[in-house]
């Protein structure tokens, strides 16, 4: 595995007396896909929010190394996409560049149209988010995240509320675009074991700490005893369905 791109050291967060993250240490390799799994309400989204700056941790450091830019470009994809209802698909995708970069209208349109074409969204460019399907909305959110050429994208449960077919569609999309655009992925997901098919390593968050950190295969083949309870219901449901 290559050297760490994102180093998290001693990251702690609490709400009142409740400890959510307890001195988390993680190394995310460059252009890798890491998935954080764990029970609902355990603090997975809090971890992403601490990394993106939406929440301030009590202690700990987050360091980007080997970054091409002085301030690494970090994008965030929200559970519900967080697209602006009153803006068209084109305007939503253009928003980060339009607001933050000095770029001519022609260059902006060219860049956005280019990305929309790559994500097969050209026909939806003039539509509003409410007028397109859930899957397309995900692609629009991804396009908005990609427009600033981020080095890392944080995905917060990107498949929430999607049927199994669309769920795999989103996973395929993330895997394909990661290969094509070469960004690092840190994802929070409940979709165990489906997500194991696209991730390089898994971080299992339990009681504020990383209970398992490593590739998904050993976890599938012989899960550690403390993880069995978490994985078994999913696996038994899968086998009964088959």
């Amino acid at each position: 595995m290559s050297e760490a791109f994102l180093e998290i050291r001693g990251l702690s967060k609490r709400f009142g007396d409740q400890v959510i993250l307890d001195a988390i240490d993680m190394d995310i390799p460059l252009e890798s896909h890491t998935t954080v799994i764990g029970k609902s309400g355990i603090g997975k989204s809090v971890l992403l929010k601490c990394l993106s700056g939406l929440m301030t941790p009590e202690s700990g450091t987050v360091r980007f190394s080997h970054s091409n830019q002085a301030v690494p470009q970090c994008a965030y994809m929200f559970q519900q996409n967080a697209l602006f209802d009153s803006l068209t698909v084109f305007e939503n995708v253009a928003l980060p560049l339009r607001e933050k970069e000095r770029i001519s209208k022609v260059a902006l349109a060219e860049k956005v149209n280019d990305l929309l074409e790559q994500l097969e969204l050209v026909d939806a460019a003039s539509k509003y988010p409410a007028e397109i399907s859930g899957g397309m909305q995900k692609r629009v959110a991804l396009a908005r995240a990609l427009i600033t050429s981020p080095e890392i994208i944080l995905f917060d449960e990107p498949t929430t509320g999607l049927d199994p077919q669309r769920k795999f569609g989103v996973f395929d999309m993330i895997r394909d675009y990661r290969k094509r655009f070469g960004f690092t992925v840190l994802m929070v997901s409940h979709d165990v074991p489906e997500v194991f098919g696209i991730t390089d390593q898994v971080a299992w968050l339990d009681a504020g700490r990383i209970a398992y950190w490593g590739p998904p295969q050993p976890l599938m083949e012989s899960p550690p005893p403390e993880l069995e309870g978490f994985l078994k219901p999913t696996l038994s449901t899968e086998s009964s369905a088959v």
Partner: protein
Amino acid sequence: MIGRVGRKGISLVSELGELTLFSASSLGSLFLQRHYFEKLVRSIYEIGVRCIPITLIVGLFTGLVLGLQLYYVLTKFSSESLLGQAVALSIIMEIGPVFTAIMIVGQAGSALSAEIGIQRNAEQIDALKTMRINPLAFLVSPRLYAALICFPILTAMFDIVGIFGGHLTGVSMLGVDEGAYWNRIYESVSITNVRDGFLKALTFGLLTTSICAFQGYFTHTKASIPGARGVSQTTTRAVVLSSIAILASDYLLTSFLLEK
């Protein structure tokens, strides 16, 4: 009991402090962002242009009723000729700014609070932060400046239509002399009265827009229930608090301006 009053007092002072910081940060951030003129024009359309019909309708009926009421009061003192002066001064100094502000709060303020509240719930405000876009600059500051521009203009429209409403009742329907009506207005209304009315409109614009935006922006912490009902709660609170703020600041401003 004393403890509860104390806690309420501290919470009120702390909320006022938060509101002041929120307004100051919003006011200070408009020109730090790109495309601010475009956003300002859109906000002027939302707050100003869309409120013109309701302002004109309410202004007209207020003038009509005021003309009628004051005519019968003045008749008792055989002073019908003072109708123009009474209608104009009441509207310019008091009724115009207050009614216009309440109308704008009902139409644009509630919409602003609900829109920002929904944006908060849909994580759009968080999305702006992750894109390194200042949410106050993007969502609130154009609306605040638009309110500072639109409130005095809409108040002026209300004043003019209201005075014509008073004319319609007093002169056209009840037979007050037209010359006396306009002459009394010309003689009694000074530029100071007009300035005081606009000062009130500016104050109401700043206060109500800040309150409505503040309630929407912090719907996740201000409402006791999350989601749609939370937004409904904070929108209602925004309208109620804005109305109270209009009347309370009107009293303070009137006391201050009349003493000068």
